[in-house]
């Protein structure tokens, strides 16, 4: 059932991964959400994590973000073993996370949300500097937000998502984790997020991208790690792998719903 290991990326022996997970397991009561997950992220690399609903992607993200603790396994940052006990610890390491459920404070305005936990101060809060930087950051993401002084509760779903993404860029992250960042975005904003991911890579950051959109994944990712039912189920270099191979790793079989639909469409087309 697991993929032929020959396809997996040969590790660049000279470079040390920024973030390295070994044997991470996590259970919620009776549900074993993650079993012995291995994952490496290098500087200047975009790693996509794909998998079906409930495969454990968000759980893995939350472990890296310090929201959940893991039951077994080890995490190394820059080769040093670390424990990520709290979200604050994760941010201090240089891991910035955009959560699938966004985690914004509805009662605060956009500026306050962007700088939450890392406000700029000059004795007191420096609102002007924060507002200025908010605008330039949001422009960079082509955000269509009319005012940064309104509560985020009054923003649309995509605008909220843009705010959550913009927030992860504040500070000097080494690793940016994006859990389905483009799920609610419009065409232009999705393209901007993909551009942004490429810029982050050029700046030498490690990016972990979680997405159900294979086109996006193939467009920006260098490597794809597949999770299936909480286990590693393949690790591919994007140039070497086809769409069908990724799909069969996600669903666990070459004969599956997706391929059957594709075949049906093909035969229809041939018949007509």
């Amino acid at each position, binding site marked *: 059932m697991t993929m032929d290991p020959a396809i997996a990326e040969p590790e660049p022996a000279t470079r040390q991964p920024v973030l390295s997970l070994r044997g991470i397991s996590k259970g919620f009561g009776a549900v074993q959400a993650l079993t012995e997950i291995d994952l490496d992220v290098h500087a200047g690399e975009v790693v996509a994590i794909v998998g079906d609903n409930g495969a454990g992607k968000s759980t893995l993200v939350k472990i890296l973000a310090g929201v959940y603790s893991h039951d077994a396994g080890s995490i190394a940052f820059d080769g040093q073993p670390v424990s990520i006990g709290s*979200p604050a610890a*994760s941010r201090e390491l240089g891991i910035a996370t955009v959560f699938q459920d966004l*985690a914004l404070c*509805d009662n*605060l305005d956009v500026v*306050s949300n962007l700088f939450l936990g890392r406000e700029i101060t000059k004795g007191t809060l420096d609102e*002007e500097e924060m*507002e200025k930087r908010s605008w330039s950051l949001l422009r960079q993401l082509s955000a269509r937000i009319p005012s940064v002084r309104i509560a985020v*509760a009054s923003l649309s779903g995509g605008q909220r998502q843009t705010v959550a993404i913009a927030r992860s860029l504040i500070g000097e992250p080494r690793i940016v984790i994006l859990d389905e960042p483009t799920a609610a975005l419009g065409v232009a904003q999705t393209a901007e997020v993909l551009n942004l991911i490429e810029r982050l890579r050029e700046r030498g950051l490690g990016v972990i991208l979680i997405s159900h959109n294979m086109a996006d994944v193939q467009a920006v990712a260098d490597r794809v790690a597949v999770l299936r039912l909480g286990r590693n189920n393949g690790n591919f270099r994007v140039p070497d792998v086809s769409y069908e191979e990724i799909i069969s790793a996600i669903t666990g079989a070459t004969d599956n719903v997706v391929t059957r639909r594709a075949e049906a469409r093909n035969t229809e087309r041939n018949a007509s």
Partner: protein
Amino acid sequence: MSNTATAGSQAERAADLQDERLFHGEGLTGAVEGFIRRVRSGDLGSLPVVIGLIVIWAVFQILNPAFLSADNLVNLSLQCAAIGTISIGIVLVLLLGEIDLSVGSVSGLSAAVLGVTLTQLHWNSVLTVIASVLAGTVAGLIYGLLFTRFGVPSFVITLAGLLGFLGLQLWVLGPNSSINIPFSTWLVTFAQQMFLPPWAAYALAAVAALGLFWSDWRRSRRRRAAGLSSGSMSVMLVKAGLLLVALGVSVWYLATDRGVGAMFVFFVLLVVLMNFLLTRTRWGRAVFAVGGSVEAARRAGIKVNRIYISVFVLCSTFAALGGLLAAARLASVGASSGGTDTNLNAIAAAVIGGTSLFGGRGSAWSALLGILVIQSISSGLTLLNLDASIRFMITGAVLLLAVIIDSLSRRSRASHGQA
């Protein structure tokens, strides 16, 4: 004068005014229009309580012309200080979406500690004040630790505290059912007889107006430097001018009687200080964030437990301070200190003043506005010779009204997409 931003001249626009969907008014009319738009969309702020206060004052003045006499207003201001101080702490816990039901007992405990250490143990008066305030701080620390360690709802912890600290208060008092604090103590003098001389009161009013103008002007200058839209000079001047006139008239009127009480000024300064901490510091921002969404605050790296503990500590400390002021004003301490309606009035004041029970919304000023409403009702009914039974019912009705307004404006915000 007001105009709606149009596309086209985008390049010259300030960075925050470039979206063409944005309403933007300029100058005074713009400020007024913006205010009306905010109120319509359910962002009522302190508007209901200000209107309520005016109605209450008008009604009582019609029923009894002594109500707005300088003498009565001076009394009113002094009555506000003690419970108002307790109410500042309640505002803080409400901002987190929590509650403290024991502020009455804690204020009583602090009063008891004051009475016993001062008159029976003959401690130095400064030391007794420190000891009684610290009693509150310790109570708050216990709440904070219980809340963050065991996750017991604050409602239950403080209900236990209500009984526990009442018991402790009675134990500290021992056989004395009531202790008189000598009038010569500076604390009593401060609470009962110290009034600002008129020149000092006028100077304070001028400082307040100048301070408002200075902070507005500085913000506007810094915004312009950052390439953002900045408020217009006329709005700033009108705001500061109105404040100056309002304060000046109040000082003049109160000065026809005894003047502005030192204890009241002390209370207002505490409100200003807390307002500053809540709106201008990282700690204050974190308080609002935790009140809005604990999980989001935690994921943003805020040390949520520290925020909870600091707020519970501050709340009980303010309660103890309020207990001290009440004891000093009555020059006596007893089993009933901090009893009867202290608790309820302090909580009611914060809610009536416009701090939401649902967390994340409110301001330190609601302690001042709310306690003014409550004490006005109480003073007006006393002048009309109505007894406590009626007072309780009316205060209860006003509290209910405030909570209904809070819930309605929350619903209105939701329907305007600003919940």
